[in-house]
């Protein structure tokens, strides 16, 4: 018998039913969405839970809604759905670009945005794109819903601000409006490769001056990070070559990169600066 067959997986048909299961300590199970992280972890020997609660295909988690100034993306939306959802491409281009680089077609068809965020891998590709939107996460439990700003959602290495009885329902992401966005990922190969460093940016320029700047990096630190020092340097300024040089150096000076099997801290420090330069030179 294969290891995953030992898990008692329940298949609630509605969010309310799932929240009810998660509310009790004796009925709660590990949340299972597309399984592209969990099934791999279980297959490669991580301890399996006694129970799991499948939230794949829950209708309440599957929608993308366009509002006047933000987009609400359900936690169960797959990377393939984001990649193909043409009406949102101009509002959240960095997120769409990030989703389109995850794994390859087979993984995109099953991997969800909620799973990518909750898995909280430093290398999760959608995190920097979510961060630069300045949006928030909607969590539900049987006792109600709550909103957490994305820049406080990833609290430590592989930790998120979510209680054991909570399910991520959606992401509320401000539309980019007149700002420009960019997403770049550096890995060993284009497909199926875990990122060494990736960057997302959302920068608004009015009459030649930067009026707002959000730049985030992933795979650099234990959590995805915003480069607030670089952002403050840019706001109010004209994007001259000298300012871009300064931004690149400041990024390199302020990141606190990790060293791991995928890349060295030195390389990541250098690449962080280059990605900031790339974002500013390609607005």
């Amino acid at each position, binding site marked *: 018998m*294969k290891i*995953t*067959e030992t898990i008692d997986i329940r*298949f609630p048909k509605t969010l309310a039913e799932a929240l009810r299961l998660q509310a009790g300590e004796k009925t709660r199970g590990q949340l299972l969405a597309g*399984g592209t992280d969990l099934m791999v972890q279980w297959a490669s020997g991580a301890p399996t839970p006694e129970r799991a609660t499948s939230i794949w295909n829950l209708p309440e988690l599957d929608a993308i809604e366009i509002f006047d100034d933000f987009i609400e993306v359900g936690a169960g939306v797959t990377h393939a759905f984001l990649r193909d959802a043409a009406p949102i491409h101009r509002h959240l281009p960095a997120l769409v670009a990030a989703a389109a680089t995850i794994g390859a077609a*087979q993984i995109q*068809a099953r991997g969800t945005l909620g799973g990518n965020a909750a898995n909280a891998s430093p290398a999760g590709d959608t995190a920097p794109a979510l961060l630069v939107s300045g949006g928030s996460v909607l969590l539900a439990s049987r006792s109600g819903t709550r909103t957490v700003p994305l820049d406080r959602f990833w609290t430590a290495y592989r930790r998120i601000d979510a209680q054991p009885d909570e399910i991520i329902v959606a992401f509320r992401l401000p539309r980019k409006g007149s700002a420009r966005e960019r997403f770049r990922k550096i890995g060993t190969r284009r497909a199926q490769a875990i990122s060494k460093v990736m960057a997302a940016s959302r920068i608004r320029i009015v009459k030649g001056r930067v009026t707002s700047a959000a730049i985030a990096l992933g795979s650099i630190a234990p959590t995805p990070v915003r480069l607030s020092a670089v952002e403050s340097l840019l706001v109010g300024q004209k994007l001259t070559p000298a300012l871009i040089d300064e931004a690149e150096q400041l990024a390199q000076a302020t990141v606190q990169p990790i060293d791991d099997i995928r890349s060295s801290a030195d390389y990541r420090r250098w690449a962080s600066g280059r990605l900031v330069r790339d974002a500013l030179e390609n607005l």
Partner: protein
Amino acid sequence: MSTLKRTWKVNGQTVPIRAPAGRRLLDVLRDDLGLVGTKESCGEGECGACTVIVDNEPVVSCLIPAGQLPDGTAILTIEGIEKTRIGRLIQRAFLECGAVQCGFCIPGMVVSSYALLVKNPRPSTPAIREGLAGNLCRCTGYTKIIQAVKLAAARLPKRK
């Protein structure tokens, strides 16, 4: 551990499924239904050998617990694809281009090629590379596989 009772449409046929909810789709196909054209290599979603089509999307069957597929799910495996016109065109092109060496990756390659050509009948070379990026081959170096998909695309009927 709960036992599933489901009916899926596998290669166009209605099939009753009885299995533990956590059994991988791959094992249901190979062990329960005898559809051994679908291969297992890594068992971790990386190699694409186990690719099948579920509700029109290519997926890796080693990462899907059977319980997540409701009644009426449409599954297409290599055994079903080789009975379709596009599937036969792809197979013939693979043979003619010498795109097959040991052959272990090939069912997955054919399934991904089929999924690609159904969505995009005139794929560019980058689009073919992207469509097959989730399928690894240790033998061929991919060049002939990409040529084969091009050849199959060129032979597709002009309109469907």
